[in-house]
């Protein structure tokens, strides 16, 4: 098979170069020519995927929602090729200090909630949807203190969540939004010492990143790409460091049925319009 697959990824951290350079070389060793293009934020990556300038995009869940909307509006087909085992069934949480007089989401009326960056699915869009589901309007009934670290990275940068957690601990806010894995991580690192916080609410499980094949991708090459990804074994000492860096033990087939809550949140907040365009007034990275 000849031809190159061009893969887009967002450089949310310098290690991203190491990761994709490693994958590129690994694919090359397995007979598939893959090159990569790094973006400073997800929105341009999605636009390039839809425009056919790249074949594959390593998309955040929000990038998937936007790509899917843009493709639908243009009559184009996308394919969710693969995701990490660690991308499945995550939950977002709203946590409060353990001794707070807050016992339900409704109790947050008139209080301040800290979130991650404006475009973080896990630390802003999904947890704020929990508030709306409880009849509270973020920004109206509840004051939102947003920690906009790494806008454009769709929450890949942990900084916004950590600052939200620090604000909670310091008493500057009444609640903080974060992903389940960071509740554990912040507990271990001491940002939120064990026993210091209580979970007030949690979302249903949802999925995170997805490797998306765009309309320009050669289906045969994508097939081969997927086959190689699923064949990567954690027992292989050459593949293992790459898997460790990218934070997975194995690649799983992409699935798209756990993005519904995020899709609804995007619609409810008008983050993107139904065609995937930015709505007026929203922050553009």
């Amino acid at each position, binding site marked *: 098979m000849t031809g190159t697959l061009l893969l887009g990824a967002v450089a949310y951290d310098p290690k991203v170069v190491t990761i994709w350079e490693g994958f590129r070389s690994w694919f090359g060793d397995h007979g598939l020519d893959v090159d990569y293009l790094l973006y400073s934020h997800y929105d341009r990556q999605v636009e390039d995927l839809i425009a056919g300038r790249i074949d594959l995009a390593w998309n955040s869940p929000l990038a998937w929602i936007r790509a899917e909307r843009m493709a639908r509006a243009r009559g184009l087909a996308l394919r969710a090729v693969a995701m990490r085992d*660690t991308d499945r*069934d995550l939950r977002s949480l709203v946590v409060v200090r353990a001794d707070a007089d807050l016992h339900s989401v409704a109790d947050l009326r008139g209080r301040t909630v800290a979130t991650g960056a404006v475009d973080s699915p896990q630390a802003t869009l999904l947890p704020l949807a929990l508030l709306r589901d409880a009849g509270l309007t973020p920004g109206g009934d509840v004051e939102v203190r947003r920690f906009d670290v790494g806008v454009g990275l769709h929450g890949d940068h942990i900084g916004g969540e950590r600052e939200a957690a620090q604000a909670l601990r310091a008493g500057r806010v009444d609640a903080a939004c974060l992903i389940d*894995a960071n509740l*554990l991580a912040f507990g271990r690192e001491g940002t939120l010492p064990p026993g210091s916080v209580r*979970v007030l609410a949690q979302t249903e*499980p949802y999925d995170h990143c997805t490797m998306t094949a765009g309309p320009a991708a050669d289906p045969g090459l994508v097939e081969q790409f997927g086959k190689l990804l699923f064949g990567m074994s*954690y027992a292989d*000492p050459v593949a293992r460091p790459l898997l460790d860096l990218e934070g997975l*033990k194995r690649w799983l087939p992409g699935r798209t049925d756990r993005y519904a809550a995020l899709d609804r949140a995007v619609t409810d907040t008008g983050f993107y319009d139904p065609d995937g365009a930015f709505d007026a007034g929203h922050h553009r990275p």
Partner: protein
Amino acid sequence: MPATIDLEGLGLDAGGHLLVERALAHLAPGDRLVVRGRHPTLRLHLAAWCRAEGHRLDQEATAPTVVRGSADLDRWRDARRAGRNAADVAPHASPAWGLAARGALVEPGGPPLSVDWVDRDLVWADIAPQLYAQATANQWDPATAVDWAARGPVPDDVEDAVVQVMTYLVENEQAALMIPARLLSRLHPHYREVMQLLAAQAADEARHVEIFTRRALLHRDVLGLSGAGGRASLQTLLEEPDFTLASFLLSVLGEGSFLDLLHFLHRHAPDGVTADVTRLAARDEARHVAFGVAHTAHVVRADPGFLSRLRTAVERRHAALADTAGLNKQVFDALVILAAGSWEPAAIARGWQEVLRLQETMDSGRRRRLEYIGFPADEAAALSALHTRNFM
């Protein structure tokens, strides 16, 4: 009935995962573990932890239930030990073992170690572990091991000779420090006793540099002379890239001769300090010589053809130094003065004879060591005669 553990009130943010891992260690991939506990976010913790570790939390189960994954087993599937156990010195050390301790179970992957010597017989001597033990047991503190108060009186013109000899000794010890330091950085740490011994040797030489410098400056503000020929001779040692040849030239021939020199200086020391520093240095040097001899003999036993490489190394060094002055005149003269103890003609005559005897002693010592290594007597004599006039 699935396996069950109870974390009581412990969260996974405070060490609870250790208990979960311990319980999972007894299960096979696909087996289930029910995790009981009172921690309010136990299920959330478990979900996040399982995801990160390659296990799965069964979302449908009533009690939190972990379905064991295989990532931890996969990581170690092809792991091999770096030698059978800590005492097993493997004939070949794999660079893939990297810096792993001898006998450790080594996860495959990771960068290979960039070292030159990975074969036991190219660096080893069976006596290395004992010599290392001896080296650590015999470390001494220059501040207290030398009686720095025993400083004189030494006649001015004899003191000049002491300063010159000390200057020469420091120069030699600096070479003797750099060589083991260079060798050990190119050695696979699997042969750790050799590495430890070389490290102790470098530390010995560092102390020698200190005590000889301090003795030189005991009554003087400046050091003596450094001849170009002597430095050229030492530099040929630094330039020898082969482990065994470097060890042979430095320790068997060089330090071996040096040992006789230190005994000579101790015997003719004009004061207690000089006697102390030469005695202490000689004790260390004897150990360095012992390793050099044992190692070279080990190599020759494994490969008798190596004798010709040793011979060539001596001849090459001799040829490289043929046009240099060798031992500088001032050092030679200083040795005569020290042995004479004064400038009286009769004393000088005695000193002269003593230095000639020293050279004979050095020669017979070299021949003895060369014969021990495996050279026939006549060849040992010929090679000893080619040894540098600079002693080291």
